[in-house]
């Protein structure tokens, strides 16, 4: 072992953590706080890169023991088959328990109505909040990052929701030091965002560093797509193309993974993690601006959905 600790005060100090180590350590601290303070936590898991990183962090936080949380996926019915296959593979590999809340079931049962534009993302809120009530989850981990969107920049790491899952941005608890206040009344729950302080680039760099497996649609591949509202959407039974929309095969990849009706692909030849990172770093568009239709609906689209219980 080394002798006396000498510290070089400066950027190059051997005791300065790299930014990825600092973010990882903070996220692990958040996972362990929830494990220590809540009865029935759940991780929202979509098979997208943010939830994949969340799960990876949870696995590290409790190793060599199992992750003490179950997973919840809100399936819009328009999910990418590659992503669903990935989801099931990961769940099996780690011996996890997965709950699925299905938008399609809600539509079939007449409890939700399909929107005229076919976009199902906003329809997720009801199955999500009902699943939270039904299973009495008291802490719900989400992969939301504050850099994604200006309403999310106002979000706390521990975000109290009332019995209707509503977010009230004017009544948030101040968050001081690393002292997270998870107190809540029965019926209320806390949304927890361990990746709050991560950016899209951090997530990709961490995936590369930790060599985390991802659904292949995150890498460039040939795909049948058509243009709608300025975005390349995947052609398929879910509802496209319509009249005057034409399918073409393009080399694309996905920056975000969500509902097929509102998640656009980007032109890309990035087939490796390094190529993806270089592409993200050079991009002049945000992740959501490039690939999400639902956020363009109004200036406060995200805030309004979050108020209703969206994550």
């Amino acid at each position, binding site marked *: 072992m080394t002798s006396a600790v000498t510290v070089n005060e400066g950027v190059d*100090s051997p005791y300065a953590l*790299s930014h990825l180590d600092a973010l990882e350590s903070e996220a692990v601290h958040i996972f362990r706080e929830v494990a220590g303070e809540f009865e029935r936590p759940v991780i929202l898991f979509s098979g997208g890169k943010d939830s994949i990183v969340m799960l990876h962090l949870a696995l590290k*936080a*409790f190793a060599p023991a199992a992750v003490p949380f179950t997973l919840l996926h809100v399936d819009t019915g328009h999910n990418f088959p590659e992503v669903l296959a990935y989801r099931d593979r990961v769940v099996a590999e780690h011996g996890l328990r997965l709950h699925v809340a299905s938008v399609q079931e809600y539509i079939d049962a007449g409890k939700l109505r399909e929107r005229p534009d076919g976009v199902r993302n906003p329809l997720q809120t009801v199955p999500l909040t009902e699943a939270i009530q039904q299973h009495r989850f008291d802490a719900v981990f989400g992969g939301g990052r504050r850099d994604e969107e200006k309403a999310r920049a106002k979000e706390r790491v521990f975000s109290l929701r009332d019995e209707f899952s509503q977010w009230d941005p004017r009544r*948030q*608890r101040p968050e001081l030091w690393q002292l997270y206040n998870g107190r809540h009344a029965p019926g209320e729950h806390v949304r927890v965002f361990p990746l709050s302080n991560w950016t899209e680039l951090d997530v990709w760099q961490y995936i590369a560093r930790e060599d985390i497996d991802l659904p292949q649609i995150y890498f460039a591949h040939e795909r049948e797509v058509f243009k709608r509202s300025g975005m390349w959407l995947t052609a398929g039974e879910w509802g496209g193309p319509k009249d005057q929309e034409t399918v073409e095969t393009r080399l694309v990849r996905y920056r975000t993974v969500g509902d097929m009706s509102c998640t656009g692909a980007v032109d890309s030849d990035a087939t490796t993690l390094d190529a993806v990172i270089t592409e993200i770093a050079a991009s002049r568009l945000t992740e959501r601006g490039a690939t999400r239709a639902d956020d363009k609906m109004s200036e406060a689209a995200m805030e309004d959905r979050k108020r209703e219980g969206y994550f």
Partner: protein
Amino acid sequence: MSTTAENAKQLADLSATTLLRFATAGSVDDGKSTLVGRLLHDSKSVLTDQLEAVEAASLKRGQEAPDLALLTDGLRAEREQGITIDVAYRYFATPRRRFILADTPGHVQYTRNMVTGASTADLAVVLVDARNGVIEQTRRHAAVAALLRVPHVVLAVNKMDLVAYEEKVFATIAEEFTAYASELGVPEITAIPISALAGDNVVEPSAHMDWYGGPTVLEHLETVPVSHDLTSCHARLPVQYVIRPQTAELPDYRGYAGQIAAGTFRVGEPVTVLPSGRTSTIAGIDLLGESVDVAWTPQSVTLLLADDIDISRGDLIVPSGDAPPTTQDVEATVCHVADQPLTVGQRVLLKHTTRTVKAIVKGIESRLTLDDLSQHPNPGQLVANDIGRVTVRTAEPLALDSYAASRRTGSFLLIDPADGTTLAAGMAGESFATHKVLTTVEDEEGWDF
């Protein structure tokens, strides 16, 4: 285009860079939004679609030029009222460092917002309008930075373009501020003359101030040291969670998981567990799956001890011979952050590290006036944004450091047990280097109770 590609390459190599957390403080008209906008914009952190959204929204409001405040005002109510109502966190990067900026609003609720932002900050930027110099608000910002023990303070003397870039104006303000902040115990002060609007000394060096030889704001943010001298820190590990796999391969594994709050821990080191006082030796340190010999703050680790002793969430592991005293009578400075008041006799919960205990407010000795740092005795209660000295009696002993020695193990929250509201942010021990206690009960603001 080549700059972007170059920038991309540099950013792609970033995984080893460090992270700096900083907070901005400034009142409404001193140009804080412009400074934040300038930092984000000139570091190329504002992307095309965000700028387009701001341009569209500005046009809709009848403004011809894009209003950069719309970039940061994320809530409907903020945009409607044109004010910032809450702390927001922003992220940007340069090839040298990553930044998390706590963007704190400067309006009337400044104290609790700035306390929130400053609690996790390594550095605070205090803005001053060069035309007005050091005003009451500036002194409040300096006092909050000192109270929260923010290690570095930057005085940004803004709007230098409006005082003809006069060295004398800057020097006078810098001198007055430095004297005041040093008296409060702020360890390091860097004064920078800037014009956020014109871009002088924010990201690019100014062409108008040859007399200034120091760094730009960004350059300073990129190079200021974030780590502290670990050798002088008392090592502390609050136990968050006990990891027990209880599997066939690991039937006896018991790991004490937590984030190291201060200092370093080494394998072989004798440790004491508080509040019980039981002792053992570190048999192993697990750094998220990797076995290491030494670990330090703020790493999240799992400690394995040589002896099977009773340890649970809320306990504090410390090196034997370097334990903080345990106490049930906490003397502290608190900043009241809730709308409902804090009163003597009130029953509360106290959350300190990973331990939450019942407590009662035994006394509120004084209320601090940030403007002149005078302490007014026996205010009876503290209301939102008040800072005061309190005594809290806890139901169980706490192993509490003074906040001056450790921001992490010297801080706590007071929580309303009825509805879970966070009432106050607490800092144990003495607060300022100097005290001016008023002996008479004269309070010019006239408390009406």
